[in-house]
């Protein structure tokens, strides 16, 4: 049973008619609200199914498990939407605001699911994969060997232990950001900021040693 949100007292001014109608019906009671919830759930489910089918195979998730994940994402998104209805300020169409919830749910659920893969180990450091991650061709190794050796040295000498851990997991081992956030009990934003600072430090180090141009405004 989806709880009734009783906090929405007035419809934001300037709302498009369709969004205003969603807000009016969802903040009410009775059969019209139930019908609107069912319709919204159907819309959220369709998006969740498309996204899980598109992203799932990368995580080695297929079949009924993928479908379960889509249903969970749609149900959790619907709960979040009804709980936060009063926070909708009309800055976008209502459906765009609502769809964001289900897409973020899919991302978070796939991140948690990643660690069920038997081949995943956070501790492993497979630096041999690094050239492939950036598209360096094996046949031209003589051209990039020194660059990647310098990058690895900079990872060891310029980054903090935590930055190094995050860099290796994401860049070397290919762990998705959302999955790493689950494992490290962190969040996407905190890890991204850590990587942001790490990238800047590494670029400064490589530029100082002549491997990259020193023209990045973010490196001042």
């Amino acid at each position, binding site marked *: 049973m989806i709880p009734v949100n009783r906090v929405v007292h007035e419809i934001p001014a300037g709302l498009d008619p369709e969004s205003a109608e969603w807000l009016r019906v969802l903040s009410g009671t009775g059969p019209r609200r139930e019908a609107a919830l069912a319709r919204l759930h159907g819309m959220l489910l369709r998006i969740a199914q498309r996204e899980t089918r598109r992203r799932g195979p990368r995580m080695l998730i297929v079949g009924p498990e993928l479908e379960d994940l889509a249903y969970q994402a749609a149900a959790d998104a619907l709960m979040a939407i009804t709980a936060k209805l009063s926070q909708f300020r009309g800055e*976008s169409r209502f459906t765009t605001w609502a769809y964001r919830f289900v897409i973020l749910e899919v991302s978070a659920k796939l991140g948690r699911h990643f660690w069920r893969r038997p081949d995943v180990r956070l501790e492993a450091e497979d630096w041999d994969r690094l*050239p492939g991650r950036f598209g360096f061709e094996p046949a031209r190794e003589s051209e990039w060997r020194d660059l990647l050796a310098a990058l690895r040295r900079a990872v060891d000498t310029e980054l903090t232990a935590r930055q190094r851990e995050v860099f290796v997991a994401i860049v070397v081992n290919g762990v998705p950001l959302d999955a790493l956030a689950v494992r490290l009990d962190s969040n996407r934003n905190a890890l*991204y900021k850590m990587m942001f600072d790490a990238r800047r430090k590494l670029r400064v180090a490589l530029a100082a040693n002549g491997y990259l141009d020193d023209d990045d405004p973010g490196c001042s």
Partner: protein
Amino acid sequence: MNGWLALDRFLRADPRDVGCAEAMELLHVYVDLVAAGEPAEQRYPGIAAHLRACGPCGEDFEALLAAVRDDAG
């Protein structure tokens, strides 16, 4: 794209980048602007910079835009 260019792009940290939290907080607003053909990048350059650099947020942006365009179609 060759490896040097890919690595160089990856390591460039755009100072306008607002990070995941702010980008996701305003993602619905940004997507509606893009879907309407409005200059979203000019209005929110920090979000645009972030979506270019952050794979997961970029993917969420593309997914939300596709959902909105499906509705419109």
